[in-house]
């Protein structure tokens, strides 16, 4: 890898690929860095290997994603897979970690952060048992590899992922013991307000529900898994109904025997790298929590660093494509001078469509959001930080002692100090603090971010390569 490209794009998902296409169209040299084994992001990871090779898929962002990938391949855009940007020098040079090569410091004229999103969860006792996995992870296993996590499954959570997973489980001849949804049925009807633009999505949802019903799977609304049990691995779990505040109704518990349980409560943006670089972040529940703040040109608070897709707000694949393209055009214009009239018109069109996708994103985020009573009803013995095995009781003790901010709870308990650097527990911890009477006044806060933002082998720090200062 030479040390200089004009633009480094972090993430080869829809946003990153869309930006790369706009940039290569304007003859800007691009390098894409992506930690996954193959480019395409999480969305294309869900395309079975077989149809990916033939490029067969239906309309929608995935089809456009495949087309983009093909275009980038044919234009020989540099894509480095299994490679991560793990830090920066704070002045435009990024630290790149690739397999079996020392960490390298690379520079670029512009950087685009298109690092996607991850799932978030409402923890319960037993959620660390093998056999309990995320709805997104289960979907990737099934669609990407044709492997069912278990022959029969309980699926629970909020937002669109549980439903999407249920469809895949049925398609691959798995059985669904129960499909639980946190929300009320009427919450989904809010989509009606976004008609007519969102009609296709509404119809899609109705078709999906119909398909599930035909297979005998009825979504139980206002329900939640409150415990999972098993010796060494999952054997059974307990479901409960929820009252209107979102708290489990005593007496409504039922035991479900199942070897597989998939859970997920929506998505949160991956903004760690942006924050490591010093980009300003803002908290917005309608965007999935902490997001990188960007201008109309997708530029962050740090000049020359841009962000596109889920890091600026959860809204799905179409928004990622639009923002990627906008960022690509904006970066091209900042490097090459004024855009052509055609491109300027294109930008205006993209921004208009972006507005509609943002409305849809807000709907998704509201639908997935767990009410305060959900977090307030987590049992004390529940592990919150999976890496350091920190239980809620320790967090409550810390709050009781007066260490009630995100940073001081982390310091007092080690919650968020493990390998994942708080990616899984920080959004949960924040909700716990925001619903606790003695901590809520601190307001939302993200955990501090330290480089390397993802673990690297110490060995990769040993032999500096050519071109490294």
């Amino acid at each position, binding site marked *: 890898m030479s040390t200089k490209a004009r633009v480094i794009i972090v993430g080869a998902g829809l946003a990153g690929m869309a930006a790369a296409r706009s940039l290569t169209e304007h003859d800007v040299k691009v390098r894409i860095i992506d930690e996954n084994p193959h480019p395409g992001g*999480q969305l294309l990871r869900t395309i079975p*290997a077989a*149809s990916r090779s033939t490029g067969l898929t239906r309309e929608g962002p995935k089809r456009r994603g495949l087309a983009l990938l093909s275009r980038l391949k044919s234009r020989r855009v540099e894509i480095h897979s*299994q490679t991560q940007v793990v830090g920066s020098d704070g002045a435009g040079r990024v630290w790149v970690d690739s397999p079996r090569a020392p960490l390298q410091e690379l520079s670029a004229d512009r950087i685009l952060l298109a690092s996607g999103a991850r799932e978030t969860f409402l923890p319960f006792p037993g959620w660390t048992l093998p*056999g309990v996995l995320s709805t997104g992870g289960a979907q990737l296993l099934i669609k990407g*590899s044709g492997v069912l*996590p278990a022959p029969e499954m309980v699926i629970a959570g909020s937002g669109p992922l549980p439903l999407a997973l249920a469809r895949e489980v049925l398609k691959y001849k798995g059985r669904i013991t129960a499909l639980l949804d946190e929300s009320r049925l009427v919450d989904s009807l809010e989509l009606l307000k976004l008609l007519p633009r969102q009609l296709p999505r509404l119809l899609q949802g109705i078709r999906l529900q119909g398909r599930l019903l035909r297979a005998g799977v009825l979504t139980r609304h206002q329900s939640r898994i409150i415990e999972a049990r098993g010796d060494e*691995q999952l054997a059974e779990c307990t479901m409960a109904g929820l009252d209107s505040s979102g708290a489990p109704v005593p007496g409504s518990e039922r035991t479900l025997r199942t070897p597989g349980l998939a859970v997920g409560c929506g998505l949160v943006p991956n903004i760690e790298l942006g924050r490591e670089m010093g980009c300003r972040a803002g908290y917005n529940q309608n965007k999935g929590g902490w997001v990188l703040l960007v201008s109309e040109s997708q530029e962050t608070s740090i000049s020359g660093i841009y962000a596109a897709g889920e890091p600026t707000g959860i809204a799905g694949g179409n928004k990622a494509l639009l923002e990627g393209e906008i960022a690509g055009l904006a970066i091209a214009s900042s490097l090459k001078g004024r855009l052509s009239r055609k491109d300027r018109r294109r930008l205006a069109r993209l921004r208009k469509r972006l507005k509609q996708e943002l409305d849809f994103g807000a709907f998704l985020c509201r639908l997935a959001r767990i009410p305060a009573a959900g977090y307030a009803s987590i049992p004390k013995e529940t592990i919150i930080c999976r890496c350091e095995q920190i239980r809620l009781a320790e967090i409550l003790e810390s709050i009781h002692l007066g260490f009630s901010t995100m940073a001081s709870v982390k310091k007092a308990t080690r919650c968020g100090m493990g390998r994942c650097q708080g990616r899984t527990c920080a959004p949960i911890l924040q909700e716990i603090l925001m619903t606790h009477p003695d901590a809520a006044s601190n307001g939302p806060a993200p955990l501090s971010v330290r480089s390397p933002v993802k673990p690297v*082998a110490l060995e990769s720090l040993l032999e500096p390569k050519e071109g490294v200062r």
Partner: protein
Amino acid sequence: MLDNDSDSDIKFHMSDLGVTTHSRQDKVTIYVNGLAVPASSGGNVHAALQAAGFQILRRAGLEPRGIFCGMGVCYDCLITVNGRPGQRACMTPVHDQMEIQLDVD
């Protein structure tokens, strides 16, 4: 993931994606704690382990852990690959004859 478009109804075709690792699904063999396990060369190690029934991939203290996020975030599926410890099973592509060590005792 968010967009529920189905890939069952095929209406679109593209000739060559150049994604060679995905163009053929070769059956290969990987070794898990010395045991031969069949796997597909296009997939990732966590899927091969799951398919072969290895649910417990490591221990956090005494607690068993398996696949959780499946997308490189949670670091729960850490395994040793060809002697290199601390690799995420869900982010490691399958290669023929690779040796996997699960630290579960």
